């Protein structure tokens, strides 16, 4: 753990710190999501490299996990922060006031998982058509198939 993480863990006692294959992961309560990100930015994590989500369906009590990958160019370190949000109207604070670069990524998460980001300036669908129904990367969204008929083919003996 680099010193910055110790400072951060002193500030947020609700946050659970984990090591995942040599990478630092902070499990943040959904209420602290923005405050923790703000503190991390203040401590040198100047880039929000990525925001994404995982749908855990019934494997976890809170269905969705929102993951943000922070990057510090000055410290040469990465920090992955994640939080869990429930299945009914999943909502988490937007990180766009801190990092405008999170805007597209959060729109993608909204589009693919239906997770709302509070105070996002333009929370609309980005990859799917605007009139699309459903959120494709949810585990209960079927892959679908196109029926193919082979009856015109000749019999092979």
């Amino acid at each position, binding site marked *: 753990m680099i010193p910055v993480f110790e400072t951060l863990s002193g500030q947020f006692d609700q946050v659970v710190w984990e090591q*995942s*294959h040599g990478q630092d992961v902070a499990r943040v309560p959904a209420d602290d999501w923005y405050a923790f990100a703000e503190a991390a930015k203040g401590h040198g994590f100047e880039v929000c490299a990525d925001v*994404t989500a995982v749908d855990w369906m019934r494997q976890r009590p809170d269905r969705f996990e929102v993951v943000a990958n922070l990057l510090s160019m000055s410290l040469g370190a990465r920090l992955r922060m994640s939080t869990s949000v429930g299945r009914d109207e999943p909502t988490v604070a937007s990180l766009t006031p801190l990092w405008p670069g999170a805007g597209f990524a959060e729109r993608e998460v909204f589009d693919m998982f239906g997770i709302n980001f509070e105070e996002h300036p333009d929370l609309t669908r980005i990859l*799917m058509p605007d009139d699309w129904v459903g959120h494709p990367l949810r585990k209960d969204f079927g892959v679908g198939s196109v029926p193919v008929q082979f009856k015109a083919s000749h019999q092979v003996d």
Partner: protein
Amino acid sequence: MSDETNDPQTEVVDLWVAGSEEPQFQPTDEGAQEISAGETPDRLDAQFGRVIDDDYLFDDDVAEDERVIVNMGPQHPSTHGVLRLEIEIEGEVIRRTKPIVGYLHTGMEKTAEQLTFGQGPTNVTRMDYLAPFHGELAYSLAVEKLLDIEVPPRAAAIRVLMTELNRVTSHLVALATNGMDIGALSMMIYGFRERESILAFFEKTTGLRMNHNYIRPGGVVADLPPGWKDDVGGILKDFPRRLDQYDDLLKENPIWLSRTRDVGVISSEEAIAFSITGPALRAAGVDWDLRKAFPYSGIENYEFEVPLGENGDVYDRYRVRIDEMWESLKIVEQVMDAMPKGDYRVADRKITPPPRARIDESMEALIHHFKLFTEGFKVPPGETYVAVESPRGELGCYLVSDGEATPYRMHTRAPSFFNLQALPMAMADSLMADTVATIASMDPVMGDVDR
């Protein structure tokens, strides 16, 4: 004593507007006809460019209906795929831009959840189709991290060789299309011509010109072909001359300079705030390269520099790409000279298939082969994020496994997707004609954006 009178006719205007290069320009009356009733001297002044009409540049008080929204794309030759831009223009000046993406969305992240870990590279190689090796590498490194295995040194060296050659081909396309968009058509021909010589080597090694599916979890799928040193040596011998040719063509070309200098400027603060990575970030002067910061595949063993720009304009991004090609060739040369001997994939038969000859003589080999190609190998539960420096920036793979043979979730952090966000900021208050130059210099690949 100097004359205090301020003659408006000779006032120096520090602003370039069409026709204002020579404010004192006096047309001769040779051959001129008499001024007709409609042509007042004021109108003639305006026609000869003596009146500088710049109110459209700085006057923000124009009525709203002066602004026009122009739709560019998704089918447009210089949007590099199916990018669509809604551009709000006021005269010739862009006020607001909205990039609209998703026209190439094929649900590859969903597809990845249906494919086994061994089939995964087939999928990710189709994302960034100009840098397929980097996508495969990021995915394979993530799977290997979850499996907690190390690839043999030869596999790592082959990966570096292929990805760095791929960086050259990708930058060549970026350069070629950037040139084509601005009008330097010979650059387009040259760029694609030279790329072909490297693609021929890719085809010889992997069987395909693109979408190689060559780098797979556990190593690479096949060893380098016989005579590869001659091929790579030929590329290394040929390219310095070619790169010098591009410099002759563009580096000090006044048309190229005026079209690219101070166009589409992205400062270092803006680049960091918008999560821009890759050449666009380094052109803004930020010394950040994942190959130096978080080295992968033993790339820290090779000597290379990280080229930087100063202003973050289109010209700097072009220079950074050219310089990166030189550095990549340096790496390729070092890899070629120090290519280790040994296996090109891990010997663990639970992960990589046995050699073809072993299947005929060993029952275990046959079982392993069958199991690998029917159900694949299982990966212990866990999550990881691995990023490589693709030609466009940080290409990351966030991989979650729940212990099955298919990923529970695979997410790609696509560099073009994030770089594209900065377009409205880079294009604001610039001229309409610079749009294509700015887009091309960000080098977006729509397969990477939409995935």
